[in-house]
């Protein structure tokens, strides 16, 4: 009996030790549940991050655009009102006061990077070959913080001088072009420029690789007739799931259109959300199973120990002391199970990373050992143990000592 331990801890420990088999079984049960939560959460998080990284690493989280042009019905004329209002076509326009908006957006705590761009459709011509492509004029220093183009370069480099162009790998193949080759870019307005291919990029999507070209911002401004203008501002945010909220704030404050990735990739977002809900639901039910397991063991323990509870009460134990003895047992079972379960979960993650490999020998789905996940699992299991012990503990504390001693 350790002198530094209070009665409740001593009694809880002895009671658990006394029912060794029972204690071991429930700790094993809790640990299996915790290991399922740990492994499944880590795997699903890794899978989600992997998918999100693949999808969002090649695009900004929010794109700010000038407000759409709308045609208004003519009213108040000399007794006439237009019966039919035709929708106008959308010209490539600059965002009004884009430099001010860029500064304000960059100051927002939720925003990690913002970059102006001038983009539009052009023709890429090389000899007899012509392709309709999208030209994206960017400020490399800013834009590469949003889309890490240099990481995706497969040939050449992500250099964007006034006469440089970086093209998608499929486009380069279609045009039979290599790094250093010249490419003629012609806008619909007839403006054109002959640029040198500085790099070839793989954006991870065939469509994007066929249509994407990067040029310096001022080159695109000249090509598209947007001198000094920016047709869009690309933004990345810290919390990707808050992108829509941030977009609304920006749109409301600056009178621009703000399309978040959540809106432009609605189905993808729904799939991610559904997966998160499924994950949470599974965790909830596993936690529920843990809770009922612990509660069942402690209810049996209260019944088995009712005479001892009665004797302790006769000797001067308060209801509070009895309550705490059983609450501590619940918490101890939860904590012990969570520690063992975390070890099982970690072992499963390490085994997964080691034995489930892709064709190139790298892990099929790399899962990280996140300390926070283990802490959360331990906390969850301990609190679950405590909560599930409440009912049996109350039952024990309320036992009538006379009835309890009689058995």
């Amino acid at each position, binding site marked *: *009996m*350790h*002198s*530094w*331990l*209070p*009665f409740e801890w*001593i009694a809880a420990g*002895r*009671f658990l*030790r*006394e029912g060794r088999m029972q204690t071991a079984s429930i700790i094993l049960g809790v640990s299996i549940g915790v290991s399922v939560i740990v492994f499944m959460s880590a795997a699903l998080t890794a899978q989600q991050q992997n998918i999100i990284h693949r999808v969002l690493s090649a695009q900004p989280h929010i794109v700010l655009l000038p407000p759409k042009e709308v045609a208004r019905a003519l009213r108040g004329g000399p007794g006439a009102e237009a019966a039919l209002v035709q929708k106008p076509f959308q010209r490539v326009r600059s965002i009004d006061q884009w430099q001010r908006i860029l500064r304000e957006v960059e100051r927002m705590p939720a925003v990690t990077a913002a970059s102006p761009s001038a983009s539009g459709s052009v023709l890429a011509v090389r000899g007899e070959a012509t392709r309709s492509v999208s030209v994206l004029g960017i400020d490399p220093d800013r834009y590469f913080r949003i889309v890490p183009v240099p990481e995706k370069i497969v040939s050449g480099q992500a250099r964007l001088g006034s006469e440089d162009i970086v093209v998608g790998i499929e486009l380069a193949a279609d045009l039979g072009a290599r790094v250093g080759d010249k490419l003629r870019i012609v806008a619909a307005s007839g403006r054109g420029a002959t640029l040198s291919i500085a790099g070839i990029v793989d954006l991870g999507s065939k469509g994007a690789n066929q249509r994407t070209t990067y040029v310096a911002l001022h080159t695109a401004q000249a090509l598209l007739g947007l001198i000094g203008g920016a047709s869009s501002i690309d933004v990345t945010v810290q919390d990707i799931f808050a992108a829509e909220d941030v977009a609304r704030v920006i749109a409301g404050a600056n009178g621009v259109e703000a399309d978040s990735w959540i809106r432009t990739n609605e189905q993808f977002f729904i799939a991610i959300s559904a997966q998160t809900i499924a994950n949470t639901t599974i965790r909830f039910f596993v936690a529920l199973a843990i809770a009922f397991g612990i509660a069942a063991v402690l209810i049996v323990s209260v019944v088995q120990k009712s*005479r*001892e509870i009665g*004797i*302790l*009460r*006769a*000797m*001067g*134990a*308060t*209801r509070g*002391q009895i309550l705490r003895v059983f609450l501590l047992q619940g918490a101890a079972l939860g904590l012990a199970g969570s520690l063992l379960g975390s070890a099982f979960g970690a072992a499963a993650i390490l085994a997964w990373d080691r034995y489930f490999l892709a064709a190139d020998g790298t892990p099929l789905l790399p899962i990280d050992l996140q300390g926070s996940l283990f802490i959360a699992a331990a906390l969850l299991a301990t609190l679950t143990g405590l909560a599930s012990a409440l009912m049996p503990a109350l039952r024990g504390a309320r036992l*009538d*000592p*006379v009835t309890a*001693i009689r058995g």
Partner: protein
Amino acid sequence: MAEAVLELEGLRKAYGVGTSAEIEVLHGIDLTLGKGEFCALMGPSGSGKSTLLNLIGLLDRPNAGRLSVDGRETSKLNDRALTALRGHHIGFVFQYHHLLPAFTALENVMMPMLLDRGRPNAAMRRRAASLLESMGLAQWRDHLATNMSGGQQQRVAVARALAMNPSLVLADEPTGNLDTKSAQTVFDLMREVNRNQRTTVLIVTHNHALAAQCDRIVELVDGQIVNDRRVRPQQAAA
């Protein structure tokens, strides 16, 4: 008579109150035990002995009447106050010893002190060891109760009842499950404590030979005291 340790006045206990199955078990008990008295409570099964002992031990509440322990009237005390009064002033010895099997003999004896103080300390250990020694169990102090004989376990239970130095010890057929020799040993130990420390003892027993060795015998029949006689003069402290 010496100062009263226990005073009962018109104590009544009924079960199923307010229902058709209401039954009164104790019909107005008047009883006073003085300091240092060694009293046997006898009576046939179902006479209300255990019910009376539970009321005196503050484990149950009477329906009517007054019950005072060490001069403290208990009818208006809440559960916490009753628990504290019980812990400090009353020691229990049960028929089946009821030791805690997960604890050693020493720890069982320490338990009332531990419950009172919250944490164990050296003084508790010393007192428990001394009590076990006085019960002739010094060498058994670190044994679990389950590894001891019935007589030894009951002696541990007596030591435990004395741990808080209570003014009143209630023993519910403490020798009922023991052979004659062990029964006499346990009885002698309780008698010795009674003599040495002037601890008041109320012992429920069916054993007439042991009852005859008490100072006083109270007989309970059908929930009423039918006989209350002094067998021998109350003995002074040794």
